[in-house]
């Protein structure tokens, strides 16, 4: 089985002192779903943002989909990685001046140089897969949060990524909209997509994740099978977190 992400003792420091990532080691296989959990400020988002070069690391070694990423960030290497790694943000970050269709086809046309007709055909297919086929010609501001997030997923998928990063994809949604986004992600996982998901959704993690990474203060506290994590977490810190989340 090939490796999608390998991180070797990566470290990231903000403002000179505060350690957002402290000697993190991790390896994620292709086809695997990894859920990253932890209290806020534990470095979960920072961790997955280093995987597509949105955050630079201060020390350590990264290898994403086979491309090495060092502390000195080479723009070209980063762009090669970004072409093959999709990302979904907490705040959707759709482009408000473009229609849904143009949001999805922008990168395939401009980055992968796919012709417009093919890109649009693929976009319609992805929208159908996300259950929002009839929204193609609308603008982001006309859609609900859940619909916008599903467009964001479709936009990332349009680049045919090998790895999908989700940065708290449901945290900005109304509770009744969370399910539609999680369902779309479930289907994606079932199709065999490699996914790294930062989330607080315990149900999703229990059901979909192969492994769970629990972080606190920039360190890996526990990295284990999801069934093990939810039934018999080794560390006291993880158990305390799970307890708090359950109430």
């Amino acid at each position, binding site marked *: 089985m090939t490796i999608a992400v390998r991180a070797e003792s990566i470290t990231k420091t903000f403002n000179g002192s505060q350690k957002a990532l402290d000697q993190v080691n991790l390896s994620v296989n292709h086809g695997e779903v990894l859920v990253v959990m932890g209290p806020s400020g534990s470095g979960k988002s920072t961790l997955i943002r280093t995987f597509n070069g949105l955050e630079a690391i201060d020390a350590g070694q990264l290898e994403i989909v086979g491309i090495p990423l060092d502390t000195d960030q080479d723009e070209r290497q980063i762009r090669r990685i970004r072409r093959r790694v999709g990302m979904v943000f907490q705040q959707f970050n759709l482009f408000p001046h473009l229609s849904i269709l143009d949001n999805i086809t922008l990168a395939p046309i401009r980055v992968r140089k796919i012709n417009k007709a093919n890109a649009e055909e693929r976009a319609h297919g992805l929208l159908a897969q996300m259950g929002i086929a009839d929204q193609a010609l609308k603008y982001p501001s006309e859609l609900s949060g859940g619909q916008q997030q599903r467009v964001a997923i479709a936009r990332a998928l349009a*680049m045919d990524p090998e790895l999908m990063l989700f940065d708290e994809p449901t945290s900005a949604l109304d509770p009744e909209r969370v399910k539609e986004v999680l369902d779309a992600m479930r289907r994606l996982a079932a199709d065999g997509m490699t996914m790294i998901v930062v989330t607080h959704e315990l149900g999703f993690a229990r059901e979909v994740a192969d492994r769970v990474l629990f972080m606190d203060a920039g360190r890996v506290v526990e990295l284990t099978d999801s069934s093990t994590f939810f039934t018999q977490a080794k560390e006291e810190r993880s158990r305390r977190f799970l307890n708090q989340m359950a109430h």
Partner: protein
Amino acid sequence: MTGSRTAYRKRLLQARRHPLQTLLSLVILAVIAWVIWSTATWLFFGAKWSVVTENLPLFAVGSYPENERWRPCLWLGLLCLMTAITLLQPLVSVRWRISGLALSWCWLAMLPIGLLLLAGGAGLQTVSSRDWGGLTLTVLLTCFSGLLALPLGILLALGRRSKLTLPRHLCRLYIDGMRAVPLIAVLFFGQLLLPLFLPVGIEINRVLRAVVAFALFAAAYIAEDVRGGLQAIPGTQLEAAAALGLGPWQIQQLVVLPQALRVAVPALTNQAIGLLQNTSLMAILGLVELLGISRSLLANPAYIGRHLETYIWLAGLYWLVCTAMALMARQLERQGPSASTSAIPS
């Protein structure tokens, strides 16, 4: 009806209670009525509009050769037509509507067409730019310097936000420097000093020098307006674009600038209108644009003392062009999704 009548009665009662206020209101009303009356009588009976009516071609095209006048007139006509088409877009049915892109290209095409019609060539008799004038020259100066200033301003704005130190400082120096100099000084430099510095024999067209001077000046102000628009775009938009693998130029061109320029449209409209008004400064430097032609007309003994008529007519013309520009800009603002509905989650 009864409602308004009771309200009227109430006012009357109040008038009895406050005689001083009532008196004041009446006096003010009388003054307003007198001003309107005297203005109207002067406009319709007192004023001698012959200075305007007899010289309409001069106001339109200046001292352009008489048998070639149809060329600038055709251009002005085309511009009026384009303005009418643009302004009527929201009123006509969807079937007859022209796409925004096609409309923009038509507007852009107006510039080379205008230049060709005015200067001649390609079968048309060439006319020296010395003979250009009137409204045509005013519009020409505005259009060309605006078209030149906009990309320059955008580049300056991008440069000012660049991560590289040298371009950032150079752009800042240029913008601050240009804004510290009055426009008339820049125009003087272009019209009177520049020819002195150039070697003998090399002469740059006066209109071109004016256009370049206006463009260089306006670019500094446009840069600041665009920078304001750029600052309104949240960093998360750049992150989302970068995460898709777009390069730095693509991010600016496809994601940031389209949004930033839409935010900047009201401020840019301001600049465009300011530019139109500022072209009148060229009258001092000897170009016979709208104000210049009026001044030379007033120097004609036949029209001595017709200042008021001429300047009211001029004000009306400037007002008309500015209003058309403002209306079109407002239409531009309304196109597409409104800028306020950015990436903020619902």
